[in-house]
C-alpha cells in the first residue's frame, strides 16, 4: 500500500460511499463463491488490510448471521526485499483460535500491486497450517504485477502508471474513508 504524498496532483477515485459499497459487495461475493461462510477465516494484512478484514467480517455476519473468525497476519518476516533496508518493526500477527487447517482462508489487503506482499502472505499462512484453499480480497487492484498472483475479490480496478501512488485512507487509521491517486508525471 502506498501512503506517501508526492508533489503534483491528487485526485479522489473512491469516496466514503464507494468504499462502503465495495466492502459490502466483496462480502456478498465471498458468500456466493464459497456457498456460505462455513470454514471461512479472514486474515487482514496490517496495517490497512486489518480494518478492512474486520469490516468484511461484520458484513458477513449481517448477511449470513454466523460469526466469521478474523485475525491479522503480519508478513514482514517473509518479505523478499528485507535485505534492502534496515530491519523493520513488526506488526501484529493474531491467528484466530480455530487455526487455518482445512479452512478457506481469505487474505485481505488494501492495495494489490506487484503481488510480492501476497506471495509473502502465502508463505506465512503455510507456516501456520494447511488451509483447504486460500483466496484474496483487495479493495484496489492497481495493476503492474511482478508475480503470477491474481485476486479473487476486487473492490475497484484502478489502472495506474508506475510514477503514481495509491493512497487508501480508512477511518480506523486515518479518520476518514477514501482512495486517492497521488502524483504522476511532473
Amino acid at each position: 500500500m502506498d501512503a506517501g504524498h508526492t508533489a503534483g496532483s491528487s485526485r479522489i477515485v473512491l469516496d466514503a460511499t464507494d468504499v462502503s459499497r465495495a466492502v459490502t459487495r466483496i462480502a456478498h461475493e465471498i458468500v456466493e463463491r464459497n456457498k456460505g461462510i462455513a470454514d471461512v477465516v479472514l486474515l487482514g494484512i496490517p496495517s490497512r488490510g486489518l480494518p478492512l478484514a474486520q469490516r468484511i467480517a461484520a458484513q458477513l455476519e449481517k448477511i449470513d448471521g454466523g460469526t466469521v473468525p478474523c485475525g491479522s497476519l503480519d508478513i514482514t518476516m517473509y518479505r523478499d526485499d528485507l535485505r534492502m533496508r534496515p530491519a523493520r518493526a513488526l506488526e501484529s500477527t493474531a491467528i484466530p483460535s480455530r487455526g487455518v487447517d482445512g479452512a478457506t482462508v481469505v487474505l485481505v489487503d488494501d492495495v494489490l500491486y506487484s503481488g510480492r506482499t501476497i506471495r509473502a502472505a502465502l508463505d506465512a499462512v503455510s507456516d501456520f497450517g494447511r488451509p483447504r484453499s486460500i483466496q484474496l480480497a483487495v479493495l484496489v487492484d492497481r495493476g503492474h504485477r511482478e508475480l503470477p498472483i491474481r485476486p479473487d475479490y476486487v473492490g475497484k480496478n484502478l489502472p495506474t502508471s508506475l510514477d503514481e501512488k495509491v493512497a487508501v485512507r480508512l477511518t480506523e487509521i486515518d479518520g476518514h474513508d477514501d482512495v486517492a491517486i497521488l502524483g504522476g508525471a511532473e
Partner: protein
Amino acid sequence: MRHLLSTGDLDAKEAILVLDTAAELAALTDRSVKKLPTLRGRTVVNLFFEDSTRTRISFEIAAKRLSADVINFAAKGSSVSKGESLKDTALTLEAMGADAVVIRHPASGAPHRLAHAGWIQGSVVNAGDGTHEHPTQALLDAFTLRHRLRQGVGDLDGLRVTIVGDVLHSRVARSNVLLLSTLGADVTVVAPPTLLPTGVETWPCAVTYDIDEVLPTSDAIMMLRVQAERMQAAYFPSAREYSRRYGLDSERMSKLPQDAIVMHPGPMNRGMEISADVADHGRSVMVDQVANGVSVRMAVLYLMLGGSMEGAA
C-alpha cells in the same frame, strides 16, 4: 543496531522496539512450525569462552528459529595458549563468513575489542563480558517485568525495582540498572558496602545497605547470585552472615507487596542469596525469564541481521 555491547547504547525508543519485537516473536513457540525464514543464509557464531549451557542454547534456539545457520565455538578460558587467543579465533570466524558473533568472555571489554579492533566485519552481540555487562539478560528481565506488571505494553515508568546482591561483580546488575532506568523504572540497589562498585552513587539508581527497608516498596525484586568464595577476599565474613543480612527467605518475601514478583538471572545459590522455598515459590518468575530469553534474543538477532546490515559490505 550494528552491535549490542551495552544496554547504555539503547535509548528508550530502541529498547521498546526490542521488547515489542520480542512480544510478537514470542508467539512462535505456540505454532506447529516454529520457524521464520528471515535470517536464512545468515551465519551466527556462538563464541563462548565461559561455560554457559543455558545462555548458549537460548541464542542457538533463537538463531535457528529465524532460519540462520549456527556455529557453536566453545573455547577455553582466558588462561589459554597463544594459539587460541581471541584475535586468532576472530580471524578464523571472519574467514568462515560469520554475519554475527555472540560472545561471552571473562574479560570485560572483550566484545568491545571484537567489534572495533578490525578483526571481523560482522555484528557483535555481548552475551556477558567479565563483570561489565550482559545486555540480553537485562532485556529479557525488562520484558518479563513488562509482561507481568505492565500488561506487556509500553515502558516501565514508575515501576519500583530492587536489585540485591554482589553488584560489584555483576554484569547483570550493570546492564539492568542502565536499561531499567532508561525505561523509566525507579531502581534501588542493595548490598553490603564491600559489594558496591566505586562511584555507584553516580549510577541512575538509589543505593541502600538495608534490604528490609525497601521490601515493602518493591514491585519487583531481583536477586543476584553471590558466590560464597567472595568471603575469602573478605567481602563479607561468612555465608551465614550474608544470607542473614541480605538473603531473601520466606519471612522477607512476606514483606513484599501482594503482587510483587521475584526474579533471578540464574544459576541460583539456594541458601545463600535466596532460600530454597522462595526459589520454588509460584511468585518467582525465573522460568518465565528463561522462556522470554529466546524471544528477546530472536528480536535482537532480527533487528541486527534481518535487514540491510549497517556498515556491512
